[in-house]
């Protein structure tokens, strides 16, 4: 029975994702119309058609794919963090990866001397419908992405170092909080000394899918595939750990190495998503709750379903962000924070009415 409902839920989410992806390809500052024209009668105007094709191929498709992949990574990481910390309020940023990534980006911007809008450039490009996302900018983009990723991974290792390994969940959690606060303060210090960077940081801190090109999208999809395999391999270990470390040990599970492996998957998924899209709030927290409110299942299924749900959520938020005040657009992180926060609030109240202990 559960197998069937799991598969049904997965199918429903996948179908909805494809529907939204098609919608995502059609929505933007140029509006629905000219792209539809291209689809319907490609022969009407060569110029028009080629522009429409470029918009779709070089901007909307990677962005749509990237938004989905980032959401999928965050959803997976969220479910993993909640299982690992045995805490339904855990989110993927708990190990300090978010603040580490922010610091990495801030330092990189200062060092590269980019000042105003290295990240801003990308959004300018997309609004000007130029297709040069690949050109000279790619190295800068890779540099920033790399800096964010390195920052995220270093922060996680710092957390692990402070907590003296992964043996003690509470200590791990506290170390993550401490690293988050300290690195957050360091980021602000960097920004204080180089105010030019502040604006470029803005879109990173709010979270945005604007600057996702093919490189980022493909990187995220590849990491996502890897994480899915890891989750599939380690899911039952997480189930075992949910019964407590003592029981997990007596079931023959090597508790510490396995928890380290899970932490690394968490850091990889979060770090990759944060590096491409900035700090997108609430997707990682809301996606697992959404799945759990619909179905009770094993950790493996929960993580994979939460991943699909996260992709769907961020895709939807991205489309709204582009469509709500077109031709301007909202930072998607602001939308996910508002929508995710509202959803969790609703879940909390519905949960307390129905059964205590959901949140």
């Amino acid at each position, binding site marked *: *029975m*559960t197998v069937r409902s799991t598969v049904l839920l997965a199918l429903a989410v996948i179908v909805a994702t494809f529907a939204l992806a098609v919608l995502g390809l059609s929505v933007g500052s140029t509006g629905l119309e000219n792209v539809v024209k291209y689809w319907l009668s490609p022969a009407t105007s060569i110029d028009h058609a080629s522009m429409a094709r470029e918009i779709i191929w070089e901007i909307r498709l990677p962005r749509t794919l990237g938004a989905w992949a980032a959401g999928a990574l965050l959803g997976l990481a969220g479910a993993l963090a909640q*299982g690992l910390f*045995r805490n339904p309020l855990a989110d993927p940023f708990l190990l300090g990866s978010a603040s580490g990534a922010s610091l990495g980006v801030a330092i990189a911007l200062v060092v590269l001397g980019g000042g105003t809008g290295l990240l801003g450039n990308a959004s300018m490009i997309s609004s000007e419908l130029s297709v040069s996302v690949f050109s000279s900018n790619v190295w800068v983009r890779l540099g920033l992405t790399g800096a964010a990723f390195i920052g995220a991974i270093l922060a996680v290792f710092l957390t692990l170092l402070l907590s003296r390994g992964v043996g003690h969940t509470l200590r791990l959690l506290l170390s993550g909080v401490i690293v988050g606060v300290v690195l957050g303060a360091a980021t602000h210090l960097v920004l204080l000394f180089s105010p030019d960077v502040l604006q470029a940081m803005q879109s990173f801190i709010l979270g945005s899918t604007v600057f996702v090109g093919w490189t980022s999208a493909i990187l995220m999809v590849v990491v996502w595939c890897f994480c899915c395999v890891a989750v*599939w*391999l*380690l*899911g*039952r*270990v997480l*189930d*075992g750990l*949910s*019964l*407590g470390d*003592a*029981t997990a*040990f*007596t*079931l*023959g*599970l*090597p508790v510490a190495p396995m928890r380290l492996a899970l932490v690394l998957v968490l850091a990889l998924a979060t770090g990759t998503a944060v590096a491409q899209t900035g700090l997108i709030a609430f997707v990682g927290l809301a996606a697992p709750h959404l799945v*759990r409110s619909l179905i*009770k*299942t*094993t950790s493996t299924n*929960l993580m994979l379903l939460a991943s699909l749900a996260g992709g769907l959520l961020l895709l939807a938020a991205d489309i709204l962000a582009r469509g709500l005040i077109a031709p301007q657009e909202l930072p998607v992180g602001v939308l996910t924070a508002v929508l995710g926060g509202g959803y969790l609030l609703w879940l909390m109240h519905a949960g307390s009415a129905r*059964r205590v*202990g959901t949140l």
Partner: protein
Amino acid sequence: MTTLNHTPALLAHKLNVTLGQGTEKILALDDVSLMFVDGRWTSIVGPNGAGKSTLLKCLAGLLPHQGSVQLSGRDLMDWPNRSRARKLSWLGQNEPSSDDLRIWDVVMLGRLPHQSSWIAAPSDADSVAVERALRSTHAWEWRERSLGQLSGGERQRVLLARALAVEADILLMDEPLANLDPPHQADWLALIGELVRQGKTVISVLHEISMALHADEMVIMSQGRVVHQGLCTEAVTHRSLEAVFDQRIAVRAFEGQLVALPKI
């Protein structure tokens, strides 16, 4: 030792455990040496803080200690994880459990030591073992529910089924009767009796002395030391039991059972 003709299933030699740090340090186990023979049920009793749970954790390899524990004649630390897990099953006290897992999946976790890998689909033998364990604790009806939907006693029966599903030779249980109502306590006694008849070794920490007196053998502890080990039916065991509780309980025979009554 009353029965030296049995092979020891577990052997504890000079166990010393210190818990806490600095001035808070306490000696939780003080030079504990014990032998647990095959095919017996031993209950560990004693006042609060006597070191019962600490001893059980040492026997399961869960706690760093001085001294050694031997499982079937081989040092516990030398056993590979999975072989040890197949040999020794554990049911802890107040351990976390995920509200989201289905009962069937929880009990199936008990089969992990038997499965070739963590991604292997359960074999028919696994499914049979899980069903047998769930039926023996009368939890079969709930197999599609999640742990979060059960009461404390029901949850305990599921966790007991999880420990049984391992089908290990030795079962270590810390307060297995917690939250169980009297009929299910009686069921548990019958179940343990059946397991011991099959040759399993059961070691349980119990705070309800009347329940503990149903065991074959009793280990009585106080302040980190073993005060007495002997058969539950022997008068010397009863006297030691009364002494360790400051003569505030009395062991009596009642309708063919031994009961420990608090003196009021």
